[in-house]
């Protein structure tokens, strides 16, 4: 599944953007070095192909529901890892822009989850290990199915970790994992079987297409050390974010109330320090760390219920007024535009 902007904190989104941008830069360089100019139109139309293929449905055997091709693994098998990563990334960019699948902040996550795993784990470490020597149909089916399943499992795990690291959902890690992994096992199996079916079809019709682009590339495999390093870096960063996050809210109740009634902190004129602290608090991208004054939080926790209620009532009232104003502006502008258009 796609990550959505709304589930992400800017830090996690930014980290994953950086990871995916690095991947794109690295793969662009590799593609330029190792593939001939034949690859340019082929990559372009295969990206469009994935789109077209995703629009065609099939009936999932035994369930009656319909599914479609994801395409990541198929691209890796046809194009090799580097070109495939670029193509998957480009498909995701278009999906984010035109179909609001995911969103732009989440694009980094999605490129990583749906591009990195099939191209640099599933393909080189599973598919290529199984499909060796004399190619047989059994090997192709086995290789593409297993690789697709593994890639989707990793991708789903990526979604779980990124969402939790962002701290927007209340879902506990174990519940989320138990929810996501089995669903994606099913999705992965379907994807794997479809990929295998298409790959065997292509193999019979035109065997040159499988890996045909990689003639000039040296194995087309990212050095294992580089993969490990990349995974390690992501793990450290996300792990760090999670623990940092967890340690700053030891108590969910205290934290949540402090959040809603955060406004009182600003109003309490406790001198320059509290002003600075609250400013810091307001502009911090990751909410609420280091500078938070615990005494203040405790104080606001004990603040009487009526003032809390007052805050929320004024919030609701003011909110509706502001919202109405915004729509009024829109309405007037629309009238205006119609008159002049």
């Amino acid at each position, binding site marked *: 599944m796609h990550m*959505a902007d*709304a*589930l992400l904190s*800017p830090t996690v989104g930014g980290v994953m953007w950086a990871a995916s941008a690095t991947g794109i830069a690295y793969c662009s360089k590799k593609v*330029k070095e190792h593939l*001939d*100019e034949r690859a*340019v139109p*082929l990559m*372009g*139309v*295969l*990206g*469009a*192909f994935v*789109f*077209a*293929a995703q*629009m*065609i*449905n*099939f*009936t999932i*055997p035994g369930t009656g529901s*319909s599914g479609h*091709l994801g395409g990541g693994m198929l691209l890796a098998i046809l194009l090799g890892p580097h070109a495939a990563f670029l193509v998957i*990334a*480009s*498909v995701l960019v*278009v999906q984010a*822009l*035109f*179909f*609001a699948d995911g*969103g*732009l902040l989440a694009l980094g996550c999605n490129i990583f989850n749906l591009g990195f795993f099939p191209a640099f784990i599933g393909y080189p470490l599973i598919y290529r290990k199984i499909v060796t020597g004399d190619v047989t149909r059994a090997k192709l089916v086995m290789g593409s199915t297993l690789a697709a399943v593994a890639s989707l499992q990793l991708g789903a795990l990526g979604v779980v970790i990124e*969402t939790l690291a962002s701290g*927007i*959902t*209340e*879902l506990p890690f174990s519940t989320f994992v138990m929810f996501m992994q089995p669903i994606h096992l099913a999705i992965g199996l379907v994807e794997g*079987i479809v990929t295998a079916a298409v790959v065997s*079809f292509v193999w019979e019709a035109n065997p040159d297409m499988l890996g045909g682009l990689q003639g000039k590339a040296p194995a087309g495999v990212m050095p294992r050390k580089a993969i490990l390093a990349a995974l390690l870096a992501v793990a450290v960063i996300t792990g760090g974010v999670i623990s940092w996050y967890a340690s700053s809210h030891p108590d*969910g109740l205290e934290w*949540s109330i402090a*959040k*809603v009634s955060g406004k009182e902190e600003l109003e309490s004129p406790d001198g320059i320090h509290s002003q600075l602290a609250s400013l810091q608090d307001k502009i911090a991208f990751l909410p*609420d760390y280091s500078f938070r004054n615990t005494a203040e939080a405790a104080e606001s926790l004990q603040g009487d219920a009526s003032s809390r209620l007052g*805050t929320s009532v*004024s919030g609701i009232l*003011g*909110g509706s007024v502001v*919202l109405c104003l*915004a*729509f009024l502006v*829109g*309405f007037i*502008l*629309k009238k205006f*535009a119609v008159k002049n258009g």
Partner: protein
Amino acid sequence: MSEIARSLHELNAMDTLAGKDSPVHRIDPRAKVITFVVFAGCVVSFRKYEVSALLPYFLFPAVILPLGRIPMGFLARKVLLVLPIAVLIGIFNPIFDRTVLFSVAGLGVSGGMVSFTSILLRFVLTVVAALMLVAVTGFNGICATLERFGVPRAFSVQLMMLYRYLFVLTAEGVRMSRARELRSVGRAGTGLRDFSALIGHLLLRTWHRAQRIHMAMLSRCFRGEFFLRRPMRLGSADIVFTLAWSSAFIVMRLVNMPQAVGRFLLEVFP
């Protein structure tokens, strides 16, 4: 209309919107992309229990949509289409976080309900803004901006080619899928075997098309290097647009306006 034909239609509709002319369309793509990034950054940087402070951000779509001549219904439909994802994730918050934060008219409002509302608001805001960006900038404008900001040539060419053939291949997909529908009764022919043959054929055709395009490139002396040239001019209007909106977003991020307005109203009309 079949599902695939509808997707194609939607894609076309977005592209048509991007091809319109309006004051917003005329703004430099870079200015619009930067403004959008500031917008999205501010919206997602709020804490998870923030609701009221998110509302002023609706001013942005409220101004840009009519000026850019983007029909609201069209956008609303697209948002509704993807909303289930946010609901799916957010729906757990009210279940796991039942701490009552305050009560309105005797009904307790839990932290989970507040954060769920917040997720939905963020979702709508970011999705609307992203769709809006495409509708007033166009895919090529965004690609050109990405290239100016240092995206590798191989990737920007990939984006360009993908978009160019998106319409050609989806139309081909529509034709093939329609032919399948015409010959299949009910569910027949939508099984895995027929599906993979259909996709396989589409893939073969795509492959041959790539070879023909390659020939067309070679016959015009292509040597592997793309020369793209997209003149862009950043005028004072573009700079004003970016600065004004960005600072408005940052002010909205720092000052909770609805809260202030509400408190003011409560004081005036107690």
